[in-house]
């Protein structure tokens, strides 16, 4: 029904199956980080890199054929280079280009718990939190709607109302639970949920460290639901795709000069293409390294910190 890695239940980001509030969105955009409005004039996000844009931006003046076999690179081949480059970008930066739904089991840490349930998500930026709950390790017989699916969720012991989930630092991968609201009725949380949750939370605060305690499902990624991604991410992916392409082309242009001499007559031909392609590759490599470093810095993927 929905294109997902697993065959778990379809995701409705608007409302949960039980009628409660759906996913909790971040307080601002993921790119530019935390932006809520901008003057028109500069496009910071754009559709994902297409073969024609890739050719214009990165391969201007580059012959896309093999001098040996005369095979030409077609649009579908360039598409393949872009796809591979995007995957390498994700691997390098640990940031998803397109939105992806992930589920993490995070430990219970009393120190973090006392800091408004400070949860550090292993991947960033978080766009929306679908569900934050305390779940059991068991799958079968739990009655959960996806218990027989490929990636089932454990039994939900207690779901933290999404109204309490604080998304202030979600883009940096930090989720807090902040139940500071005027009243439960004002935020439309049922009294039974609020009462049971409060009891569990009071009790668990006395416990030590518990592994895989919190269950959190969320939408992660730099790109929008529609497929728009930051312009600079396209730049990095394009640079990586150029590197992959140059790696194929450069060895085929290795013969840079030829000379032919017969008696007193001589002719020499030199081709600068080998050097040109080599320079292009070096430029692309430098650009990719710089951009991925910056993106890692902005999304806080460069360092990991925690308490032991």
């Amino acid at each position, binding site marked *: 029904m929905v294109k997902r890695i697993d065959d778990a239940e379809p995701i409705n980001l*608007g409302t949960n199956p039980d009628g409660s509030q759906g996913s909790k969105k971040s307080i601002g955009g993921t790119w*530019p980080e935390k932006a809520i409005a901008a003057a028109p004039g500069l496009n910071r*996000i754009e*559709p994902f890199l297409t073969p024609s844009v890739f050719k214009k931006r990165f391969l201007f003046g580059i012959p896309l054929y093999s001098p040996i076999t005369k095979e030409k690179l077609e649009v*579908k081949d360039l*598409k393949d280079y872009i796809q591979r480059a995007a995957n390498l970008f994700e691997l390098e930066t640990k940031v998803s280009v397109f939105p992806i739904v992930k589920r993490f089991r995070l430990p219970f840490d009393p120190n973090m718990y006392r800091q408004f349930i400070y949860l550090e998500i292993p991947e960033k930026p978080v766009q929306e939190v679908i569900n934050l709950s305390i779940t059991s390790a068991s799958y079968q017989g739990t009655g959960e709607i996806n218990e027989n699916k490929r990636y089932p969720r454990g039994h939900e012991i207690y779901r933290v109302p999404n109204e309490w989930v604080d998304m202030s630092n979600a883009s940096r991968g930090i989720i807090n639970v902040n139940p500071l609201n005027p009243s439960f009725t004002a935020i439309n949380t049922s009294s039974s949920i609020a009462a049971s949750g409060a009891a569990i939370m009071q009790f668990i605060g006395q416990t030590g460290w518990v592994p895989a305690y919190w269950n959190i499902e969320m*939408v992660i*990624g730099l790109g929008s639901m529609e497929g*728009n991604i930051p312009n600079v991410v396209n730049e990095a992916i394009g640079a990586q795709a150029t590197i992959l392409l140059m790696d194929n082309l450069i060895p085929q242009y290795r013969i840079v000069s030829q000379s032919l001499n017969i008696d007193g007559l001589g002719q020499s031909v030199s081709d600068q293409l080998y050097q040109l392609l080599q320079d292009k590759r070096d430029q692309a490599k430098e650009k990719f390294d710089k951009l991925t470093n910056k993106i890692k810095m902005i999304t806080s993927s460069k360092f990991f910190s925690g308490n032991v």
Partner: protein
Amino acid sequence: MRNVVKLLDNVNDINTFDEVEEFTIIRGNSYNLCFRLFKEKKDCNGEPTLQRYIPIGTSNSVQVQFDNLDVEYCIKRTATKPYPSDSSIWCIPILPQDQLMFNGMRVTLYEDSKVTNFIVETDISTEDTGDRRRFT
């Protein structure tokens, strides 16, 4: 052998149209999205080549699905055949309120009881214009 769909633009009749490698949909606009069914065959040199595919069943239908991470925005439509004389060409309407995701199109052909899924080879981008452009 791959089953492939390519989007068509400027469709006037069964002989007059452009096969496009990329197609940009501006959100908020309506379109009559036409596409053609192809099957990959080997030519006389043994190289794979695309040939248009005309469904052979007595009762043929084509379903188009636009996937989205959010089930609320998934779209499923039955395509129509604008030219009975060439049933490799099919069309579906794109409505202004449709929230399409990049390359989320899937095409399924039903020929009687036979089901064939097609890969959409055209890159379909969606774009907002002006102040409708949203942050990611």
